[in-house]
Every structure is written in structure tokens, then in C-alpha cells.
């Protein structure tokens, strides 16, 4: 007679998590947490190695012949080339200070998402394959050999890190786990194991100058559509220039703002601010992408894709570059651009033509952040503002990882918001400024197929946003990052549906009193501003004829 089942056995509810050492728990790649693999043709476009068809759910990943040697040789080269990487492999004492700082750990509860363990995935290979102690003592010295299973584990977790660097803030040794991820992804790219959400934008960017693959006429046409909206909602006709030689300033922003909501409203904001102050600037249809998904592929790819910024500045003969609101764009620009690529000798130290302010911080780089530029305009009283137009918004500010931890910009966006909105509330201090939580979808992880992963990673930020929503009625999450604008709406839709998302420049433009403007009863989203509805729509019938 068969043994009687216990109630637990009856339902097969397994509520006991694994208790083995992390090295003994095999990786499980599940739908919802991984991104689709890179299409081979998108790898070929940029001449990267080993393009091939594979599926993360299959046992056989069709790895190229000699994959192990390729990986280890790549690791050896990088240990020699990047002293930081070598140090990060050697000095971690596994104190655990970083362990509970990662949004993916805090949102998933998966211990392999503790930055220390994510680092150990690679460090264990370093010890097992490169150090004497690890080669002899193996597990005893924290080392292991590179196998297909281990490679799959590395792949899974390198794409469960958004390179936000929050963990590095707490490491007493200054280990930057984001840099370990950057190298880890480079090594995976040697085997053709990128994800398509990164690879396709890289290929597009290489071919057309922007991630979306917009051809020049499409890029212009989309901005023209937004100009029509400005004309409708604001009553102002704006005619910006494209590829105009001799302009004083070149403006570059992420292409996401040209296309998707709510980024397009931020872009409408830029157009209005520049019109208001009469800025001598131009757009480029070649350097038409501020973002750089090459940075999530390899440092060399980041360099190649970044080159167009100075090239275009030189071709158009501008004095300096003004950059829109973006996250990783500013990490690349601020920390790599003028060593990646040589600044153009004809460019000058940026000076605001409106206020005369010298941006000494950008003396070498020759590129200024939109928030620095706008804050300076406000400080000098150059913007005519009516913050009451934003009174229906109770605003909080989400510091994007890269502008905050990557370039230390904390005050400018807050200064702007406080001047253009009457209701501003901070989220709790351990979730903002340098301690800010990532949106959960940065570094090329903003695909749709990994939505569960994105929502897990977005939980710590959403938890703080939900708190200010419940406590103060906050309904607008402002930010200065195009990926934030693309992904936070999905996160908020799940965790805090009453919260909207906007770029700072959209809020500025809402408040901007422009010469010759119409009655301003609508905001840039085409929504009626509460309390400002027109008295009577007399001509409504004619419109529909």
C-alpha cells in the first residue's frame, strides 16, 4: 500500500529554500528574468566575435570552439590592462558591507544578487584558474574551474546588474562591482553572448547614429511632430535648425526622448527653453544619440560610438556641446569621453551666451549638462516662470544613478524643481542623492521580456516613492534620465499606479511664460491644467468639418 502523503507533500509546496553553499546551487534561467540573446546579424554589423544562434533555456548554447580558452585569455588580458580589475579580484575580504545594498538583492531576495556574491562568480574563476593557491586548493581557497554551468551562471548574473554602483559606495576598499560587471560582460561578448536589447541598439547606433535606427529625415520629422504639439498646446511656433554649421552650441540628447512617452515631453521642454532664451544652437542628425549602449558591451565599443560627438562638433564648428537629461550618457561623457576620444582643438571652454557663466567644470570636456545650464539660467533670472502651472503636481526627485554617483550632480535638478513647482517633497534620505536606488532597468536591461526582473529591481525605488505618495500625496516622479523616463512608468504602474514620471525640463517648460504664448490651458501632455480650462470652446464645431 502506498505511503500516505503529508499535507505538504500533497500540494508539492516547497517552502524550504536551498541551504547549500552558493557554489553548489545550480543556476536556473527562467523566463521573465533573462533578456533574449543577441541576433547574430547585429553582432556582425559591428564586427564583434562569434555571432551565433543560441537560446538561454537550452542545455547547449552552441558555444564556439575553444570558448574556455577565449574567456580565460580575455580575462588574462584584462587583468593586465585594467589595474582596477586586478585589484578588485584580489582585495575583497567578503566583509558583506555591499551585500544588502543592491536593488536586485533587495527586490528579489536572491543571495547571488548580493554584489559580493556577484563579484565572487568571477573572482572564483580568477582564483581557480589564475592563482597558485586556488589552483592547488580549489574550493578551500574560494576557487573553481570555468565550466559551461559556471559560464551560464556568470551570464545570468552579469545581466542582473545595472552597473548602478550603489554597492561601491559602501565598500570599505572602494571595489566597484559595476566595473566587474563591465569586464564580465566584455568577456561574454567575446563568445557572442550579448543580449539583443543591447546589441541591436549598438548596431543601430553604429549605422545611423542613434539606438533606434532613425534615419536623418525621420529624426527631423519626429521633432517636427513635437513642434506641432507645442504650437497646439503653447501657441508658439518654433523652428529649430538641424546640422547648421556655425551654430554656437550643438545639442545632443538620448534618442529615446525623440520617440517615446514621457521622454518626448522633456524634449518639447528643451525646444521651448532654447526658444525662450534665443539660444544659437543646432541639432545633429548624425550625433543624434546621447546614450551609448556600447558602454554595456565593451569599453572599445563605447569609444567607437562616442566618437561622433566630437566629430560632429568639429564638422559643424560649434564652440561647445550641451547635453540633455540622460543617465549613462553622462557616465560615459563625464568619466570617459575626453580620454576615449580627443577633444577638438577649435572647441572652447563652455560659457553660457545668456548669462556669461563659465562652466569651469567642463573646461576639459567642453560639454555641459542641461540641468547645470538651466539652473544657471534660473539663478540669473533669465526664465520667466509661473510655477503655479505645476500646482497639480506634488513632485519628488529620483536621482538617477549615473548623474548622481557618476558625476556628483545633486543640487541643480532640485534647485530647478523648487523654482518651477510649488510642491516638492524628498524621498527618505537613504534612497536619494548618492544613496539613490536604481530604476531597476538600467545598463541595457530595459527590455520587455525580463519584466519580473525589472519589477524586482525596481522595488526599492518604488517602495520609497510609494511612501511619499502615501504620506504627502506625491504624484510626480521627476528625474534627469531617459531610461528612467522609459522604465519608471512600468515600475510605477505595478508598485504605485498613481505616480507619473517626468523629466525636469518638462516641468520647466510647463512653468515657462513665453513671449506670444496662447492661454496655456494645457500642459505639454495635452492635458488640461486643473483650474485653467477655457471658459467656452466656441470654435470646436468648425474643427471637425
Amino acid at each position: 500500500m502506498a505511503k500516505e502523503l503529508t499535507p505538504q507533500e500533497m500540494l508539492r509546496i516547497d517552502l524550504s529554500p536551498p541551504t547549500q553553499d552558493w557554489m553548489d546551487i545550480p543556476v536556473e534561467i527562467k523566463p521573465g528574468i533573462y533578456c533574449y540573446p543577441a541576433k547574430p546579424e547585429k553582432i556582425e554589423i559591428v564586427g564583434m566575435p562569434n555571432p551565433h544562434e543560441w537560446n538561454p533555456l537550452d542545455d547547449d548554447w552552441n558555444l564556439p570552439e575553444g570558448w574556455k580558452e577565449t574567456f580565460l585569455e580575455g580575462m588574462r588580458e584584462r587583468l593586465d590592462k585594467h589595474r582596477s580589475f586586478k585589484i578588485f579580484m584580489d582585495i575583497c575580504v567578503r566583509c558583506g558591507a555591499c551585500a544588502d545594498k543592491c536593488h536586485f538583492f533587495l527586490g528579489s531576495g536572491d543571495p547571488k544578487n548580493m554584489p559580493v556574491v556577484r563579484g565572487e562568480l568571477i573572482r572564483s574563476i580568477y582564483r581557480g584558474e589564475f592563482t597558485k593557491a586556488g589552483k592547488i586548493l580549489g574550493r578551500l581557497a574560494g576557487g573553481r574551474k570555468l565550466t559551461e554551468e559556471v559560464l551560464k551562471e556568470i551570464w545570468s548574473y552579469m545581466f542582473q546588474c545595472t552597473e548602478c554602483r550603489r554597492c561601491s559606495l559602501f565598500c570599505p576598499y572602494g571595489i566597484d562591482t559595476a566595473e566587474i560587471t563591465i569586464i564580465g560582460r566584455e568577456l561574454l561578448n567575446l563568445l557572442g553572448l550579448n543580449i539583443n536589447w543591447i546589441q541591436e541598439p549598438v548596431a543601430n547606433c553604429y549605422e545611423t547614429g542613434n539606438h533606434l535606427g532613425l534615419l536623418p529625415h525621420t529624426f527631423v520629422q519626429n521633432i517636427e511632430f513635437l513642434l506641432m504639439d507645442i504650437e497646439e498646446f503653447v501657441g508658439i511656433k518654433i523652428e529649430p535648425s538641424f546640422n547648421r554649421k556655425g551654430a554656437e552650441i550643438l545639442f545632443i540628447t538620448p534618442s529615446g526622448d525623440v520617440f517615446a512617452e514621457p521622454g518626448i515631453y522633456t524634449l518639447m521642454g528643451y525646444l521651448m527653453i532654447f526658444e525662450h532664451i534665443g539660444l544659437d544652437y543646432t541639432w545633429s542628425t548624425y550625433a543624434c544619440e546621447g546614450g551609448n549602449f556600447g558602454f554595456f558591451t565593451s569599453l572599445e565599443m563605447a569609444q567607437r560610438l562616442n566618437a561622433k560627438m566630437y566629430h560632429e562638433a568639429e564638422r559643424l564648428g560649434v564652440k561647445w556641446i550641451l547635453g540633455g537629461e540622460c543617465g549613462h550618457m553622462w557616465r560615459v561623457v563625464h568619466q570617459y569621453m575626453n580620454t576615449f576620444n580627443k577633444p577638438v582643438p577649435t572647441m572652447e571652454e563652455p560659457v553660457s551666451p545668456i548669462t556669461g557663466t563659465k562652466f569651469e567644470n567642463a573646461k576639459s570636456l567642453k560639454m555641459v549638462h542641461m540641468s547645470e545650464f538651466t539652473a544657471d539660467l534660473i539663478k540669473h533670472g533669465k526664465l520667466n516662470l509661473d510655477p503655479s502651472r505645476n500646482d497639480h503636481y506634488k513632485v519628488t526627485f529620483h536621482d538617477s544613478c549615473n548623474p548622481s554617483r557618476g558625476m556628483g550632480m545633486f543640487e541643480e535638478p532640485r534647485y530647478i524643481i523648487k523654482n518651477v513647482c510649488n510642491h516638492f517633497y524628498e524621498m527618505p534620505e537613504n534612497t536619494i542623492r548618492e544613496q539613490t536606488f536604481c530604476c531597476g532597468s538600467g545598463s541595457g536591461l530595459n527590455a520587455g521580456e525580463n519584466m519580473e526582473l525589472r519589477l524586482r529591481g525596481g522595488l526599492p525605488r518604488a517602495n520609497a516613492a510609494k511612501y511619499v505618495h502615501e504620506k504627502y500625496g506625491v504624484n510626480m516622479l521627476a528625474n534627469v534620465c531617459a531610461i528612467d523616463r522609459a522604465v519608471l512608468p512600468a515600475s510605477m504602474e505595478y508598485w504605485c499606479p498613481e505616480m507619473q514620471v517626468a523629466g525636469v525640463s518638462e516641468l520647466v517648460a510647463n512653468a515657462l511664460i513665453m513671449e506670444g504664448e496662447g492661454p496655456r490651458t494645457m500642459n505639454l501632455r495635452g492635458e488640461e491644467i486643473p483650474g485653467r480650462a477655457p471658459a467656452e470652446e466656441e470654435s470646436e464645431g468648425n474643427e471637425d468639418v
Partner: protein
Amino acid sequence: MGSGIEKLRDLLEQKKGDIVEEWIRRIQHTYPEETASFLEEEGNQFANPIGASINQSVWPLYDEIISGHDSDNLYKCLDYLIRVRAVQDFAPTAAVAVVNFLKDIIREKILDDIESQGLFREYLSVERRIDNAMLAAFDIYMKCRERVWEIRHNDITQRPFILSGGMCASYMLRRGKKHLEKMKCGKNPSLN
């Protein structure tokens, strides 16, 4: 002298701290050991959002199960706890089974008292309420999963890449929405 159900409620109220703390501990231990230790130790709700979701849900949930009269509040109490578990690495059963832990804990902690005071019949109604709370948790779980799929769907349809050629997606979507709104109002829209 109160009725049997009142006596039982008093007993459950007296033991509330003990029972709920154990309930929280068991929910924390549905996560791997290292994570469970962290969830137990970190008291700051912003540094420990999973822990916050458990704490914020379970205390009021206990009150609602024992003596609540508000079905909406029952759903409200369960929401954050289940919303978090619905996107984590749990099977659907494991995501909602945490509600049922309460039965085991009550039995372990106060079944002897219940029996000695002759309150077993009354206790059955409490178990029934726990069952109902678990059914409510299943509703919430399903709503969350459906929401995830809706969000995925929206993300795909609003994704810029789907457009090739000439139009701004958001612009067209908004134009389309306006067109529909006008149709609903019985006007004769022009798409120009």
C-alpha cells in the same frame, strides 16, 4: 461573561505579539538563509523593502482575520505582501501559502488553551477566516500576474522600434486616442 467567540478573540489578542512575530519569521524564512537573516535584522523600511512589505501587511492582517469586518481592508492588508511575492521566484502556491502559516502557528501556540477553555468550535470559524484570506491572496496574486502581462504588453506596443519609417509612436497614439474620444462624443472627427 463574554460569549465563546469573544473569549477566543481575547485569547488571540493576548498572544498577538507572539503569534505575529512567529508568522513574520516563517515568512522571512521562505527566502534563502542569508536573505532571511538580513530580513530579520534590518529594521529600516527603505533599506529592507521585502521586510517592510511583510511587516506592513501581516500586523494589520492579523487584526483583520481575527476580528475584522471590512473585506476591502482584508485585500488592502494582503496587497503589498502578495504583490512582492508575485514577481519573485516563488511558485504560485508558495506565494500565497504564507497566509496559511497562521493556522500552524495558532495551533502550536494556543491549541491547548483553546481546548481547555472549550473554544474549539469557535476556533473553526477563525480557521475559516484564514482560508478566506488565502483565497483573497490568490485573487491578488492573479491580479498582479495579469498586471505584469499588461505592463509587458504595453511596453511592447509602445516600444519605439515597432515603427519603421515615419511616425512618432506617441504622437500617433495620442492622435488615435483623441480621435476615439471625439468618436465617443458623437462628433465627426478629422484626423488631420
